[in-house]
């Protein structure tokens, strides 16, 4: 078993080790220290593979590694020595290792590849990407982002198909199940099946008929006879019927109740009503009655009593048997049909993914595990990896699932055989295993520890000293978990000896009687309805906010992590935790009302946030302004800030006026007295930033007037909406949104409209929404409508919905999180909000117990309602129940151990089991309820507002150059001249013609060009015999560095000529003078250039037209 942590062994780079480490004991410290030890001992960076549970943890680990390597590289020798000493490097080795230690930062940062720090999923995906052919993967298959969406699509499609073919096996099963358990439960069943697909594959791997295979094994545990009608058999059993009759007769003489029973038995016998007989003889829940008859009755029976009891007993047994058979029949039917449909559904889902060329996490896990375990492919896999892993570091191992462990252990066993120097270091804490819903299995930790002990001679330690929790907290937490299996009392770290702590347990109860209704009928205009349910949570939420405001914030003093000095607690020091998101909204409201800033990460909550809905409504309005609700919504939002009176103007009935909504808004905005119609100059006048407008581009002139006009809110809305609508079809969503933010001044408007406590979150959400648009734009075939649709379908997709924007760190706000979301976090003060927790057991699910050391689940079946589970599977259900309970304990442990100094637990006094547990554990402990009061409240530093970005305009948008055939013809003609005029400059004329769409005209134009070249009056320019030298397309570099291209330069004896081709049709119509005038400047430039080249010669210039006209220009005398 495990021993107290011996760091020297745990960090030794040549040994393997397992550390079970309690919350706050410094797991990351150990892990990263070990990485450094390995590197110091000469391991190549690429030989390190660290696997942790979340990407975030992986990133944090990388960050920590870099930080420490920096210390090693930069610190003075004393610091580095201390650092190494703390990591248990033997004193005599330290000096020798210094040079290596100092170089590690660069060794690691320049390594190709570097150390791998990743998650299981990340690692699997990487494996698959490197061996797609072996895995049989769609090529380069990206990860499917929206599993549920596709699953639902596939399910709906298949359900439609099956029900359209009721005679098919699936159709028949579907109808049977529908009739039996109904649509709702069927859906639940199928969803659970799809979620358990990895277990299903593992159970049926290699089976030709997976469904049959699993059914066959199930069948063995059920009653042998499921086909016959047990009830009919019962009635057919005459001796049993006779016994029943005798029992009935015997009871006729009993008490009044017994006489009733007797009548009931007779009636049941008469009607052959089995159910009636059963509930008469047995108890309602199927159990046996303790007393079969009253004592006097039995006594009265005399000798008959024995017969009576014997009959009764036999009857009970017979009835029970029938009930068992009936239950087993139901189980059988549920599985027979359910497995068939589930299997087909999973297949359909897999096919759909293959069709789209994507995979999901389950696939990645399954395929990667298959690869790692494959005798055929595993050896080759090593060659495909760029890194040879020789040192494995496993973090948070308690959240690993059996399938992952299977793959990993196979691989480890192989690797160990091949490389005896391989080491494994594993840390985790089974007490913090909280991912059962993602198939995490805490027991894997122990299985893995055993394996490592056996195969890697791993030392096994446990560390129960926490650096996070202050002594009082440790003292408080120990009794809460004392009864937990495997829990060892925690100790605080010596350096925390004097750190204060505070604990409160806050049971909430509500006076039920108080809700007496007031006399008479309620007037809704004056009196709101009282909140009906969850009153406890309302009270709790109120207490939560008030205690924080009045007793904690600014009053308690907490230890600042950075400065290690105490200071008054601020909102950012508080972490508020909930088990489920159900009541999050209420707690948020209470904080809002109290003016305490907060940040929630309601997972997937972004699109539910009101500001995000405002933006969606705005986009929808732009697309479909007639959607009244959306229009009204946008108008009321801070984007436009219209009042209810404004809404009445736009929407309320006005008998003679038929229009309403959008049309009426436009009409209102168009009325002459509306400032919208003011002349731009007037509208802009008086605006303090009017100067700044000068540079705004003309495209936006209209918008400019809009936002500066002293308009009514409605007029502003109409103008802005109208302006934005014009950009809908063409601007990408992100650019459109940016325009909305910019012209609508959105951020400032929201900041003005919402209460201060909400500002950080609202601002963060506005940012997050913009970012969402950016990511969506990068997708295939984007349109605005498509974007909105995507948002709509994302809104309620629990897996894929985008989270709310996280306000930047440094923004001082209470964090309101789920316990799952708080994993890896800590805070000076933690408040565990309990509300009233209900847990209900699951029905219509999958039972697939998978012991950690087993290669596959030892059983697979479907189950229905609580009372229809039969008896055969009890042992597995019992294990499941224990695991569920254990998970709940773990959740509590995780929640309580997030706190450093202050811990408050609240919840319904009578309904919240956690609260009760904590209350009981703490009742005699006399724990401090407050942290020391903070002395002085330091004046908060004035925040300097960031500067506004400003610069003057630069750059411009060129209008598109229209392509017209004349220009194309000119270009081709030009090219022909270039090609054919000696000395020639070969051009690919046919390719050019094709590109210009003038393939047909080429021969014609080429002929024209050649005939032009042959014209006698041009001979001096084109006949090599007549000139000294000629250039086509002569490139010259002018003094400014611009490249100038001269069509033709001809050196004659008396002058140098520049010919400029004007081969487009548009030139022909012009006179010589016009042409000369038009091209004067350009040609003067040419002339100046040539004058630089031929300083002693006369430079003449001429234009040559396609028809052979030569326009000689008079020499210009420059300078």
């Amino acid at each position, binding site marked *: 078993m495990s021993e107290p942590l011996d760091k020297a062994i745990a960090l030794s780079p040549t040994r393997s080790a397992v550390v079970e480490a309690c919350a706050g004991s410094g797991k990351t410290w150990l892990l990263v220290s070990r990485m450094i030890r390995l590197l110091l001992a000469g391991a190549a960076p690429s030989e390190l593979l660290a696997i942790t549970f979340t990407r975030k943890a992986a990133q944090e680990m990388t960050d920590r590694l870099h930080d420490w390597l*920096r210390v090693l590289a930069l610190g003075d020798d004393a610091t580095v020595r201390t650092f190494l000493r703390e990591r248990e490097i033997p004193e005599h080795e330290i000096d020798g290792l210094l040079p290596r230690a100092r170089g590690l930062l660069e060794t690691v940062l320049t390594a190709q590849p570097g150390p791998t720090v990743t998650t299981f999923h990340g690692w699997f995906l990487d494996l698959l990407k490197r061996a797609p052919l072996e895995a049989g993967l769609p090529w380069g298959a990206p990860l499917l982002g929206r599993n549920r969406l596709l699953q639902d699509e596939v399910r709906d499609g298949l359900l439609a198909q099956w029900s359209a073919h009721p005679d098919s096996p699936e159709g028949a099963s579907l109808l049977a199940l529908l009739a039996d358990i109904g649509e709702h439960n069927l859906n639940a069943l199928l969803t659970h099946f799809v979620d358990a697909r990895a277990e299903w594959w593992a159970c049926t791997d290699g089976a030709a008929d997976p469904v049959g295979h699993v059914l066959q094994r199930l069948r063995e545990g059920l009653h042998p006879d499921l086909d016959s009608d047990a009830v009919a058999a019962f009635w057919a059993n005459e001796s049993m019927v006779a016994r029943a009759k005798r029992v009935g007769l015997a009871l006729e003489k009993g008490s009044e109740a017994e006489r009733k029973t007797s009548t009931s038995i007779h009636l049941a016998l008469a009607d052959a009503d089995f159910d009636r007989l059963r509930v008469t003889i047995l108890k309602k829940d199927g159990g046996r009655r303790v007393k079969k008859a009253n004592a006097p009755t039995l006594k009265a029976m005399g000798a008959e009593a024995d017969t009576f009891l014997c009959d009764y007993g036999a009857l009970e047994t017979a009835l029970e048997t029938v009930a068992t058979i009936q239950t087993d029949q139901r189980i059988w039917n549920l599985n027979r049909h359910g497995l068939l449909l589930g299997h087909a559904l999973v297949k359909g889902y897999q096919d759909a993914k293959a069709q789209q060329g994507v995979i999901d996490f389950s696939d990645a896990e399954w395929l990667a595990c298959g690869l790692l375990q494959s005798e055929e492919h595993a050896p080759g896999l090593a060659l495909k990896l760029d890194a040879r892993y020789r040192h494995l570091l496993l973090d948070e191992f308690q959240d690993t699932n059996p399938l992952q462990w299977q793959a990993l252990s196979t691989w480890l066993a192989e690797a160990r055989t091949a490389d005896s120097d391989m080491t494994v270091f594993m840390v985790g804490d089974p007490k913090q295993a909280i991912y059962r819903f993602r198939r995490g299995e805490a027991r894997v930790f122990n299985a893995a520890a055993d394996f490592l002990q056996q195969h890697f001679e791993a030392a096994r330690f446990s560390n129960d000293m926490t650096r996070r929790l202050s002594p009082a907290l440790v003292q408080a937490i120990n009794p809460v978990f004392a009864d937990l299996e495997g829990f060892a009392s925690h100790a605080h770290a010596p350096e925390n000896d004097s750190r204060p702590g505070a604990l409160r347990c806050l049971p909430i109860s509500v006076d039920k009687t108080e809700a007496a209704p007031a006399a008479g009928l*309620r007037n809704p205009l004056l009196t709101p309805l009282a909140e009906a349910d969850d009153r406890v949570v309302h009270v709790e939420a109120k207490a939560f906010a008030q205690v924080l405001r009045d007793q904690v914030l600014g009053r308690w003093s907490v230890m600042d992590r950075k400065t290690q000095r105490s200071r008054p607690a601020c909102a950012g020091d508080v972490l508020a935790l909930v088990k489920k998101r159900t009541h999050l909204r209420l707690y948020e409201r209470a904080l809002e009302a109290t003016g305490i800033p907060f940040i929630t990460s309601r997972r997937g909550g972004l699109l539910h946030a009101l500001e995000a809905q405002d933006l969606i409504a705005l986009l929808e309005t732009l697309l479909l302004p007639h959607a009244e609700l959306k229009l009204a919504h946008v108008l009321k939002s801070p984007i436009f800030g219209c009042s209810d009176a404004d809404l009445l103007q736009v929407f309320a009935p006005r008998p003679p006026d038929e229009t309403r909504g959008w049309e009426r808004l436009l009409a209102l905005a168009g009325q002459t007295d509306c400032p919208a119609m003011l002349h731009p100059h007037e509208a802009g006048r008086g605006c303090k930033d009017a100067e700044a407008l000068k540079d705004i581009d003309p495209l936006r002139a209209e918008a400019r007037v809009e936002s500066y006009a002293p308009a009514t809110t409605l007029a502003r809305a109409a103008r802005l909406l109208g302006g934005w609508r014009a950009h809908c079809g063409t601007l990408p969503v992100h650019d459109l949104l940016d325009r909305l933010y910019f012209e609508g001044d959105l951020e400032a408007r929201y900041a*003005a409209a919402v209460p201060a406590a909400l500002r950080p979150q609202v601002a963060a959400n506005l940012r997050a929404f913009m970012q969402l648009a950016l990511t969506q734009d990068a997708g295939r075939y984007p349109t605005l409508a498509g974007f909105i649709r995507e948002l709509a379908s994302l809104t309620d997709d629990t897996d894929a919905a985008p989270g709310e924007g996280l306000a930047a760190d440094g923004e001082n706000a209470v964090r309101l999180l789920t316990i799952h979301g708080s994993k890896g976090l800590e805070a000076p003060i933690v408040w565990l909000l309990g509300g009233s927790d209900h847990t209900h057991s699951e029905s219509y699910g999958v039972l697939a117990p998978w012991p950690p050391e087993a290669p596959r689940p030892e059983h697979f079946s479907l189950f229905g309602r609580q009372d229809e589970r039969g008896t055969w599977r009890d042992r597995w259900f019992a294990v499941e129940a224990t695991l569920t309970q254990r998970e709940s304990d773990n959740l509590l442990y995780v929640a309580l151990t997030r706190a450093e100094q202050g811990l408050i637990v609240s919840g319904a006094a009578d309904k919240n089991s956690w609260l009760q547990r904590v209350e009981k554990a703490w009742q005699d402990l006399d724990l401090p309820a407050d942290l020391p009061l903070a002395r002085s409240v330091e004046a908060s530093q004035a925040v300097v507002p960031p500067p506004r970005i400003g610069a003057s305009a630069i750059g411009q948008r060129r209008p598109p150059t229209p392509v017209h055939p004349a220009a194309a013809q000119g270009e081709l003609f030009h090219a022909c001249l270039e090609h054919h005029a000696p000395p020639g400059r070969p051009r690919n004329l046919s390719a050019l013609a094709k590109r210009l769409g003038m393939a047909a005209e080429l021969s014609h134009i080429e002929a024209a060009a050649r005939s032009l070249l042959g014209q006698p009056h041009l001979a001096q320019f084109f006949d090599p015999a007549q000139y000294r030298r000629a250039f086509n397309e002569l490139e010259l570099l002018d003094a400014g560095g611009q490249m100038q291209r001269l069509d033709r330069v001809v050196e004659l004896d008396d002058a140098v000529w520049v010919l400029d081709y004007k081969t487009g049709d548009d030139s022909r119509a012009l006179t010589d003078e016009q042409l000369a005038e038009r091209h004067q400047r350009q040609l003067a430039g040419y002339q100046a250039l040539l004058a630089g080249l031929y300083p002693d010669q006369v430079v003449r210039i001429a234009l040559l037209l396609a028809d052979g006209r030569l326009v000689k220009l008079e020499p210009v005398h420059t300078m």
Partner: protein
Amino acid sequence: MGIARIPPKDSSPPGVEIPQSGAASHASQGDSDPLRTEVRVESYALGGGALPHAVARTLLDRHADNLPDLSGLTVLVPNHRAGQDFARALALAARRPVLIPPQIIPLKSWAESVADDRIEPQARRLARLHSVLRHESWLGTVDKWSLANELLQLADELSAARLGGNIGSQIRALRADALDRETSLIEAVWRTLNQDGDDPQARYARALDALLEQVGLQRQPIYGFALGTLTAVERQFLERCAERAPVTLFEPAADATDAVAFALHQAWQLTTPPLRERAATLAEAFPHSPLPPRLTLCPAPHLEAEARAVAIWVATQLQAGQRDLALIALDREAARRVRALLDRLNVMVADETGWTLSTTAAAAVIDRWLECVVSDFPHVELLDLLKSPFVLGDLVARQDQVLQFEIALRRQGVARGMADMLRLAESRFGELPPWLATLFGARQNFAQSRAPLSIWLARLSSSLGEIDATAALSADAAGAKVLDTLDGLRGDLDADNERYSFGEWRRWLNLALESASFIDASVDSPIVLTSLPAARGRLFDAVAVIGADARHLPARPAPGLFSQSTRAQLGLSTAGDEANATTADLMHLLGQGPALMSWQAWNDDEPNPASPLVLRLRALHQAAWGSDLPMQTSGVPPTRPGPLPEPGMQPAPTVSAAQLPRRYSPTAYQTLLDCPYRFFVKNVLGIRELDEADDALDKSDYGNALHRILKSFHDNAPPPERDAALALLSDISDAEFATLPAWTAAAWRSRWAAIRPAYIDAWLDWVAQGWRYECGEAAFEVPFNVPGLGDITLHGRVDRVDRRIDQNGGEARIVIDYKTGAAQGLRKKLNDPAEAIQLPFYAWLSDAAAAYLPINETPVTPIELNGETDVDAISRRLPQLLEAIVAGAALRANGIDAACQYCEARGLCRKGMWHE
């Protein structure tokens, strides 16, 4: 003659011998030189200037005698823009009115100028390869198009890596290992596609050979700089050139004359001696860090902050007079955001990075159209199409009709199908609007039989013509590019005869649109958004590197068929090579002027580590000067400010009599009770939600169906015998459900089938009590006069009215409301009839008893309104409330949470954003 190569020189410690600026050259042997020639190495100290300037000076020095005519020389540049910058540098250094410039050209373009026509278009090679792969059954579900793409790329890389026949054997040598599948595939591919000399690399090589001949004839010097990573073919070419003419390649050398370049070199290109020693040398040479005025870092907490920081940095640079700015877009999203923010200032950015065609609005139009064709006009895609400015002529002209059509589609719940839409459009507009007619016609004409790719493209093209898309798309820059690309592909694929189905072709099309990109060239600006390779060798005044985190810098290679070590064995470039090239590019850029390196230090909730280059630089800086580099702060982007809105308050509007409705149903009354503001929105403003056309049938549809079934059942005077009644009910139910989609029908039928017997039992029981059916769907109205408001009508429609004569001969009536909710909830409601007014209100309107009849569970039992209930008081409260409202009582938003949760008016009421 030989290649003169000017390599990065390992540290020349300052204070030793600093080579002079200009052409100080000395020879040495480069033994690790990949060029493997006996080369003369010249080293240049590029003191204070960027590479192009130094090269220009050298060139002018060496060929001073020829000036101004430098023709005949060749200067190889990494890309055209670098060529332009070099030309400018040359002109600047020459200080002459005119130069006949050397040939300044990228190697590829030079080769292209003499390349032959012998080439098989990539599209056809891809198709050819695919047609082979699609018959390889062992490949399973692998997407053959993507696989073909990847294989082709690899084959071409192999071709470029080394010429000649030894590739096959090289690959085969690898097969000794376990890489069997990959190697056999790639070998086969290489053999079939890359051995006949028609592949682009072979053509390139031939062109280079042709150039070689030219070079041999002319024997004129060749220069080159910043050429990046060369392929073996290119290296070979240069080596052979060197045998015929002087070839000089320039690379930046680090020396201590340029403090910034020297510091960067010390940080990024060396790992020995140890960091602290290098730092000490550096600090000795430069007691003050040269970096702070030049290099700023920005680890931003999120994307927006990064973009804002970059934007304010750009603004600052512009204000300081810098002009040519490069924004290196390592992180595309952040870079786009920067561009948008700068756009607000009218600081335009020329985007050289481009978009894949599939992300353009033009491609989206094609996608929507194809979807309409293949899936018979799903309404979503159809509406997208109808609202696009790229099709069907003038958008404004049809806009109103399209909106009307959309609303009609939603109201009628038409989700797809030409036939239904035709009907709807005709009933709505009287005739088929031309825009719809065109689309329908074009779809009819779109043949969907299996065909070769080029035929498919021809079909697409002609149908785009039919829907008036061609001209509009051509007028849009991206659209024109899309059309061009498709036309080009069609030409290239002319000879390919493999036939494909619509679906297969669309997959190909997706890939094709994904592999081509569009660059918006319409912006003229000295500020460019570009990539590192595209910035290579160019001159900038200042440079911002956006996305300098570990994910992007250096870029991580996507895992391909071969691992890095296999690639190295085959002579292909590896991640290490790429990283080195990146570092070199970056050093050159950052050395030119003020620079910013920004990244998101946080991504979502996760830390996002900085680039190793940043980490190394910071560490060195810390060690040398004991300080960090300066950090760029963020700024606030400009907006169009106006008067700000009022703080949000709990709404409490008042309304006038004229604005109040005249008719009131129990629902309206209930709404008023639940939340007066909601009443304001729903009943005063009269705002309703629009339905989605494709929303699945839901619970309320089920309820409506049952209502219809039961009305029909009772109207049909059912026989009071159980079996007969049940049979009748079953028939009616089946008929009702038969019109539904298969699954819904099956599910509802099954659900209702479980209830039906219980319903009949309850009804027979009811009949036994003497109740008789009077009518279904009965409407009741009661006029009322409200002071201040005038005459109003209170009204309601009940599901069923029954009547009986009791023992005393008195007549009794009861109104029954069917409910599909849970009985328990209904009972709870009836505990407080003053708050759940439906039943009391019905009772009052009809002057009868009232009951709910829950029909979603067994047994079916009516839940009657307590006879003691003061229905009169409850009902008369409505007019009293109305009177109060007219008198000025406010309609306050005061719903309880349970009401707010599903309240459609939340966006208007804005609960949750109120100031107290």
